């Protein structure tokens, strides 16, 4: 058991216990929160813009086809 205890103690010989700090934990918890919020908002905004662009394009193409159809019928009947 002594050998195992010695090995386990050796494994943690370089553990920087004195560097552990609660203010650093607090800073880390605040730091990584913001980018995630920003990125979520960014993704949402991009999704909305993409949807609007696709919907706008679809409506534009539809209107254009309808106009062409009306012109064609007008030309045929006229």
């Amino acid at each position: 058991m002594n050998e195992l205890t010695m090995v386990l103690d050796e494994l943690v010989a370089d553990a920087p216990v004195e560097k552990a700090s609660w203010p650093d934990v607090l800073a880390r918890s605040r730091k990584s929160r913001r980018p995630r919020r920003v990125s979520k908002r960014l993704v949402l905004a991009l999704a909305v813009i993409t949807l609007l662009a696709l919907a706008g394009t679809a409506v534009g193409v539809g209107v254009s086809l309808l106009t062409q159809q009306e012109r064609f019928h007008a030309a045929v009947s006229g």
Partner: protein
Amino acid sequence: MGWMRSNGAAPAEIEAIYRDRCRAFLFAVTAFLGDGEAALDVVQDGFALALRNRSSYCREGSLEAWLWRIVLNVARDRQRSRRRLAALPEFEATEDAREPDDEVRASLLALPERQRLAVFLRYYADLSYEQIAEALGVRAGTVAASLHAAHSARPC
């Protein structure tokens, strides 16, 4: 009085455990990763993550076991990404391990991850079988078997 307790952990509760048990967390993760600086980063990140997600602690188990689970998950993620980056192989007992200490070390580090963690949590953090089980997300019987297997795996 359980009805008075709301879900989630208070930042002060997490801070109290950090201040009281930081050394144990740091030792266990250092032994697991084999790198003190990386272990410090993991412990700090783990507690920061716990602070951010403190509302998800449902008070079914102990807060310390919940914190251990978070920190150990961060440690496992860190180890996986380090292996991917450096293509580090799993530690294997080599024939160079001639000294008795080296043999013990090699046997210990060659143990499966769960057994190794059970040994580290028992030795560095002095956790009970039930607490280790909670921290590792297994049953207490599994912890007892893991520790027994770990002790049996040591060279005579």
